[in-house]
């Protein structure tokens, strides 16, 4: 395995190996750039993934202490687990369900499209769909997204059959097994979907795209990647000119190490990324790195979410097969007549019995709740996911009263639902129920949001340095050789699952970094 010296100041250091960091690492290595990839978690594989929800959660999830505040229900139900994301090589691409949808043109222009929304810190992206289209195409090819590049769609499972029947009966026109980064046939050295039903637990067949077994081994083959696991970065350092010079991290033995760098790219997901910038505050940057705008940690978005489960008088066995087996897209367009701006997607979801009992309605008890669980085998389910409003006060901050295993202040995640989020959720619940009632549901359940799987916006990109943290390439406005390389860059959340866009931005950013390096601009 390639090893670069701690004193090698010609390397690009990337923090985090998920959709953003893992992709960026490979793209740079393919161009001959030396990369040190620092991943806080351990390296698993399809062979070590576990088809068992709680043990898998312990294996993959980021469970370091975090705190919460705000009126979102997650703060009540899961006060120390604001997000369900991963600490492992491949990051949350081990856990994601695979839905791969491009953002829509108007979603890059939220401020222009929606106008001023009270309490929302809306802003247009500094890039357009046209800017991203060639990179979306590269991402879809790389990830093997179904219904693109002549790849067949996936076969729908029982959960999808119920969704499709209800969608059709209430007049929806756009319901299918969607665009998924899950192989419907063998492709790119990976097998086809075995319909395991454990997409969230790491794909044991390798059919679902994850940087763990695509980008990272491809990068290793170039000889340009030095991947260090169980390396938890605590600080980004800079010189007197305000240029990033390297990072300090704790290795697997808890020893502090200092890696020099020519460029630092942060891809720790939208809670750890701003946390690290805030932890790196210095005399020169007393409010944290790249924070002259004061926007680091702000505009935290997690999508409007909720689920609808329904049971029927006949079996469904919804846990069999792909978790996000199908999608209804009729509600995704912006149509303010519904009482809110933006739109939402309806995607099938299933949980194994252990997680179903934990997440169906946290805190509930009694005969009605028990009866709902009694009908597990006859249950169908869908997840509702839509655009949420960026708010300055929805924010990741350092909670200096609580420290982690390294003695570092833990992140506090504050989130208040915006009235637009609440109106959209009410609409989505009603429509989700209507889909299942049309199929003859005996009972339906409105399930509250899970810990956030989509975390976005805490270091957003903006045209003007006063409005955000980074520019249209993810390069921070304040520090030219410091980049944001994950979903923290998102100016607004759009309605679609974020992974495809994170990968797309990473491919584009790699082109830009390579060009800047060759021009000696950074």
């Amino acid at each position, binding site marked *: 395995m390639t090893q670069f010296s701690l004193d090698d100041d010609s390397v690009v250091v990337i923090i985090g190996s998920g959709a953003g960091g893992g992709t960026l690492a490979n793209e740079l290595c393919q161009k001959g750039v030396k990369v040190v990839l620092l991943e806080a978690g351990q390296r698993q594989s399809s062979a070590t993934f576990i*088809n*068992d*929800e*709680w*043990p898998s959660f312990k294996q993959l999830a980021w469970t370091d202490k975090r705190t919460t505040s705000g009126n979102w229900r997650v703060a009540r139900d899961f006060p120390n687990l604001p997000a369900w994301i991963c600490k492992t090589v491949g990051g949350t691409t081990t856990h994601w369900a695979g839905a791969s949808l491009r953002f829509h043109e108007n979603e890059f222009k939220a401020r222009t499209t929606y106008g001023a929304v009270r309490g929302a810190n809306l802003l247009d992206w500094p890039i357009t769909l046209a800017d991203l289209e060639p990179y979306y195409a590269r991402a879809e090819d790389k990830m093997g997204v179904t219904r693109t590049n002549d790849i*067949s*769609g*996936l*076969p*729908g*499972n*029982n959960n*999808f*059959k*119920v969704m*499709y*029947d209800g969608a059709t009966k209430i007049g929806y026109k756009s*319901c*299918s*097994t969607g665009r998924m980064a899950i192989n*419907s*046939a063998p492709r790119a050295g990976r097998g*086809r*979907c*075995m*319909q*395991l*039903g*454990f997409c969230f637990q790491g794909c*044991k*067949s390798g059919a679902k795209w994850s940087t763990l077994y695509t980008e990272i081994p491809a990068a290793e083959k170039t000889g340009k990647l030095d991947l260090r696991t169980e390396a938890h970065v605590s600080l980004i350092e800079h010189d007197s000119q305000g240029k990033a010079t390297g990072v300090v991290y704790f290795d697997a033995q808890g020893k502090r190490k200092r890696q020099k760098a020519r460029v630092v790219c942060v891809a720790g997901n939208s809670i750890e990324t701003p946390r690290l910038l805030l932890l790196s505050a210095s005399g020169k940057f007393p409010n944290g790195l790249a924070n002259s705008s004061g926007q680091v940690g702000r505009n935290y978005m997690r999508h409007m979410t909720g689920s609808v489960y329904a049971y029927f008088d*006949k*079996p*469904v*066995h919804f*846990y*069999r*097969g792909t978790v996000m087996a*199908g999608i209804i897209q009729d509600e995704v367009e912006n149509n303010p007549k519904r009482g809110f701006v933006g739109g939402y997607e309806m995607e099938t979801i299933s949980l*194994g*019995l*252990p997680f*179903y*009992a*934990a997440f169906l309605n946290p*805190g509930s*008890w*009694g*005969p009605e*709740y*028990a*009866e709902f*669980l*009694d009908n*597990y*085998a006859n249950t169908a389910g869908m997840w509702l996911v839509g655009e949420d409003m960026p708010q300055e006060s929805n924010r990741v901050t350092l909670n200096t009263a609580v420290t982690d295993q390294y003695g570092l202040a833990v992140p506090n995640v504050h989130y208040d639902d915006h009235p637009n989020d609440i109106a959209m959720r009410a609409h989505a619940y009603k429509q989700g129920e209507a889909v299942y009632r049309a*199929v003859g549901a005996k009972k339906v359940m409105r399930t509250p949001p899970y810990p956030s799987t989509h975390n976005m916006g805490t270091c957003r990109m903006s045209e003007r340095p006063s409005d955000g943290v980074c520019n249209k390439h993810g390069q921070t406005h304040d520090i030219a050789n410091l980049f944001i390389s994950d979903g923290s860059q998102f100016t607004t959340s759009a309605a679609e699952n974020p992974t495809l866009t994170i990968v797309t931005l990473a491919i584009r950013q790699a082109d830009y970094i390579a060009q800047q390096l060759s021009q000696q601009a950074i």
Partner: protein
Amino acid sequence: MIPIFFRPRQAANDPSTSGQDFPSDIGRRNVIKASAMLTGVLAAQSAVGLLAPSLAWALDVSNLDQGQADTVQALAKTLFPHKGLPDAVYALVVKDIDGFAATADGRGLVSAGVRNLNAKAGGDFSKKSLAARHQVVAALIDDPFVQKVRGTCITSLYDNDMAFAHFGYQGEAFSKGGYVFRGFNDLTWLSNPPASASPPVIA
């Protein structure tokens, strides 16, 4: 008679956990040492009974007395009154609360909580009807002991092979080849979506 015969799943690697091949002499020794015991018999034709190596089961309890063990079980059955779910599954909650009561703090919470339940019930909580117990629990739902048992139920009741069999969840799938040829799309009470929405499996 056997101790709880299915391994609680979260303790799969714990050699001290009672399993199907638990030596019977050790089982007897534990029964003698135990301060309380829960026993029962599974219904032969139930989903769980069909899988079990023996229909009789027993759980020995070390840190709870008999009244406390009975109360925890009755509380679990009040919080999550599942139709036909065998007592052997509810006994797993007692097992985990028994473990929790190994510390002085845990024991203290259990004794205070059981006292509160009995006081509210005006007698032995575990001997009351389900409706009466429901009223008591509704009044005491914020009690830390009730919340402890409720939280424990979420993992103890639903994360074990007996519950999987009872509720109709098939669990681990990879070793069986997943569901691609094992019923992922076997629902026949609705018509199939067109191939444009749901293409066939690629052979």
